[in-house]
């Protein structure tokens, strides 16, 4: 654990130091390049705003109205038949839609069932091994102005399903279902 936290703690500063030294060594005008690259960042961040506002408002309405809860109740028998514990279903549905909500749910599940329970471990692995598909889609495509997404959403959501099945199977195999 200490080694891992040491690595994640020193990784970014080391990376920055390395990039700067390498740039200086290759005689890049480091500071000027940094500023030029940074300017692009502002443009990108501002250009994402409308995409994210549209998506988050729709998601908020869907959640606040109670439609999301209804959807979960509706799906529950199906997931139960597949051997997915009912407690974890809300997290499964939220995970691709909202990153902050999913993080909140994961800590909730860990708090209630304990970090070393089946549910706690499953929530941990799920949180770590999948990402917020809608957010990634909105931000990445929004930033570069892609309007026709093709199969991207379908592929992303199906990949999430694979990730969920994999997480459940791995946790059950490694730790058992207690």
């Amino acid at each position: 654990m200490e080694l891992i936290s040491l690595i994640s703690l020193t990784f970014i500063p080391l990376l920055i130091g390395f990039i700067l030294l390498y740039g200086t060594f290759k005689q890049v005008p480091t500071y000027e390049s940094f500023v030029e690259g940074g300017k692009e960042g502002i443009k990108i961040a501002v250009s994402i705003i409308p995409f994210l506002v549209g998506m988050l408002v729709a998601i908020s309405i869907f959640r606040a109205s109670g439609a999301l809860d209804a959807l979960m109740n509706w799906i529950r028998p199906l997931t139960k038949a597949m051997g997915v514990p009912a407690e974890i279903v809300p997290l499964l549905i939220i995970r691709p839609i909202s990153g902050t909500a999913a993080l909140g749910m994961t800590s909730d599940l860990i708090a209630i069932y304990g970090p070393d329970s089946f549910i706690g471990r499953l929530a941990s692995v799920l949180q770590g091994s999948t990402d917020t598909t809608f957010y990634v889609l909105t931000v990445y495509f929004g930033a570069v102005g892609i309007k026709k997404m093709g199969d991207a959403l379908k592929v992303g959501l199906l990949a999430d399903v694979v990730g969920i099945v994999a997480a459940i199977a791995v946790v059950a195999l490694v730790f058992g279902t207690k």
Partner: protein
Amino acid sequence: MVNYIWVFMTIIGIVFALINGTMEEVNKAIFDGAKEAVTLCIGLISVLVFWLGMMRIAEESGLLERLSKLFRPVVKIIFPEVPTNHPAMGYILSNMISNMFGLGNAATPLGIKAMEELKKLNGGKNAASRSMVTFLAINTASITIIPTTVIAIRMNYKSTSPTEIVVPTIIATILSAIGAILIDRYFYYRRSRKG
């Protein structure tokens, strides 16, 4: 597709609010959602400016190119349409590496840069190219080595072994990444068969 999903979520939400009498919550949600989105973007400015600045140095010094040379064989299999020496390769790789270390806020700017380069490769069209869909699929499967946030939460709740989920997470994430690539391939071949 996104248009339909977007309208669907909003309309179903409003209809639900009418039936359930949750209009008050929905009204609040509209403005909270918009505010959260802007707050998120403003928060992104700092990391975007910083990492894109750093990456500009890495690009101009040739560091990105060296990195892409190193991993070229693997990435070439996943992204057959990206020319080997194209800057997109370097950005795709740096994005994947940042994701692996759980550095989400470094991964996003790099991912956006990669998308930009992929769009240039696609002649600047506003439709997603094959490589873009693949890149997105890999990103949503999010290959993780150190799930830092989760470990922190587990420590908070006094787990006897906060890091015991690291290996299972790696296995699950590899499986889902492989799944993502296979699903992406399937859709690609289906598309190309239709012409």
